[in-house]
């Protein structure tokens, strides 16, 4: 079991227990990640994409906790790991890059110091070797003059350079999985292009699996093997990049694709998704998206939609897709 996949997330539920009640941020998320593949998680703010990533790393805020579900790393359930095992898991097996390179580096330690910390912790290298490794890593991520950089502090570097340092730090111990939580959102487009290029190059070179969390459909389109679309803490749709962009089977995905301005210069009116994102404190009984869905049916209000399987592992959690599939099957059997 678990041979084929490096990471399996099964029916993950993560909640935050706040003064105003339980916020179900992740509400039954299931996915598998094969070694060396890139998985994209897209969704709006509050859709639970970052919390899913944090749940895997178990770095949730103090009010948050995994309520149920399993996260299997090479067949082992890491939600059952104790603190020490978890320390070994983070950095060595799986590491994370955060959105904001401005705040995710410690301002009072040098770049070299922060890079070496992880290396010293996870490997039996001595200080000298760790330093060499740190310089090697900085070279790998394209930081110029690494000898000089390791003595510098984060404020002396630009945003793009800091994000490179973050990537170097994450990859220093050669993890099997890299989680990138909006790695380019805080960067300019030209710098974003540099970082995305770098990530793809490193992925080819080192062969780790990447979970790419983002709200930008453009970023994941040409990069991910597989994409999951999240809304209201649930997975709406899962499929290959082509499934999601050319054959979207969930009304939310369709809406998202309609609402981005097309790059073909057409000036036609955009079709926005009406309404506002849902309040996780007050989740509807049925489909999370039904209040904003143009095609909502009666059943959407009361029942959580099932997973509707389509060819090649593409599935959608939508009653409409269910209905269409059911009708198609009925038509076939009548014939």
């Amino acid at each position, binding site marked *: 079991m678990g041979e084929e996949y490096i990471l399996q997330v099964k029916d993950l539920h993560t909640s935050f227990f706040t003064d105003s009640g339980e916020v179900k941020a992740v509400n039954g998320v299931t996915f598998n990640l094969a070694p060396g593949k890139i998985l994209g998680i897209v969704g*709006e703010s509050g859709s639970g994409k970052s919390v899913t990533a944090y749940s895997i790393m178990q770095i949730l805020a103090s009010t948050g906790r995994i309520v149920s579900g399993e996260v299997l790393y090479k067949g082992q359930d890491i939600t059952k790991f104790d603190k020490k095992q978890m320390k070994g898991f983070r950095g060595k097996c799986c590491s994370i890059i955060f959105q904001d390179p401005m705040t995710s580096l410690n301002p009072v330690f040098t770049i070299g110091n922060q890079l070496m910390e992880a290396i010293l912790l996870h490997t039996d290298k001595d200080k000298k070797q760790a330093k060499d490794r740190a310089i090697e890593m900085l070279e790998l991520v394209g930081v110029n003059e690494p000898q000089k950089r390791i003595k510098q502090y984060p404020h002396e570097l630009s945003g793009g350079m800091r994000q490179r340092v973050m990537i170097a730090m994450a990859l220093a111990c050669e993890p099997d999985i890299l989680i990138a939580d909006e790695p380019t959102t805080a960067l300019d*487009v*030209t710098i*974003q292009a540099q970082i995305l290029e770098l990530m793809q190059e490193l992925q080819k070179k080192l062969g780790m699996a990447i979970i790419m969390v983002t709200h930008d459909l453009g970023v994941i389109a*040409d990069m991910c093997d597989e994409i999951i679309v999240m809304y209201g803490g649930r997975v709406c749709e899962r499929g290959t990049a082509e499934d999601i*962009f050319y054959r979207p089977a969930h009304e939310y995905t369709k809406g998202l694709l309609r609402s981005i301005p097309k790059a073909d210069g057409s000036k036609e009116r*955009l079709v926005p998704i009406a309404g506002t994102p849902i309040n996780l404190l007050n989740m509807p009984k049925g489909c999370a998206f039904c209040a904003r869905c143009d095609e909502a049916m009666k059943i959407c209000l009361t029942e959580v939609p099932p997973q509707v399987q389509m060819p090649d592992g593409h599935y959608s959690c939508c009653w409409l897709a269910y209905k269409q599939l059911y009708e198609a099957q009925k038509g076939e059997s009548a014939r």
Partner: protein
Amino acid sequence: MVTYDPQYILMVDELKKYFPIKGGMMSKAVGQVKAVDGVTFNLKRGTTMGLVGESGCGKTTTGRTILRLSGEKTGGQVLFNGKEVYDLSKKEMRALRTKMQIIFQDPFSSLSPRLPVGEIIGEAVREHDLVSKAEFNDYIDTVMDECGLQPFHKARYPHEFSGGQRQRICIARALALNPEFIVCDEPVSALDVSIQAQIINLLKSLQRQRNLTYLFISHDLSVVEHISDVVGVMYLGNLVEYGRTEDIFRNPLHPYTKALFSAIPIPDPKAKMNRIVLEGTIPSPANPPSGCKFHTRCANCTQRCKEEAPVQREVEDGHYVVCHLYDK
């Protein structure tokens, strides 16, 4: 010096804005950040001009300097309806403020948390005596309705609203003064994709109804392409290319524009990405490179680019570029 042409609501000529760098014991100015360093463009009434560029290129400062929101300008001219904005007296400026408004990027910090929405929108209307007391309430209701807000929202406070609705409040606040010109400073950058489209559609329909002129500042190129009639591309305080949206996007001329556009991630897995990845980062505007400011990152850099700053020239009808490559 430019002469006033009535078809243009706004004429900006060689606008410069430098900020002093203070240092040392006596806080003396030890240097200058050349945030806007000679920007020239004209804006036709009822159209939208998009201003794009990376962070730190001076697009926001350009917007604010046009509105006379960041102290005195360092040089150049801003003609609004033919009048130099910086020559107006305090009283005249106050009257003009109703005609030129701004919508800020972050709807979370640009609304006072202590005022109810009706007051946020109505405060300036009352200050400037735009409508009589009897009509006041109805007037605010109409403006709110135009922006997709309900009358009962008036008594609520900003924290009760989502990001998209707050941006509607910001738009209503600007609109209530019946302006002719609005600077939209990254109005959709802080919003989710599904909400972005709502706000863009709202801005477009308001423009049609009221013949508004927008200066639309954004780093999101696909949004700018969608909403703008003309586009200006900025790099380190200069407008490097400027022209009609179709010309700029179909036929970008400046090497920076080309690289910038090639870096836009396209939401289509089959689209071929011929990214021109620029080396390095944007230099500091306190110490810009000599000659053409882009030469440190430019693939077509020649010796001349390092020494001599290029000037703006019209390559095709209405399409301007600042680059030595197009010298004939």
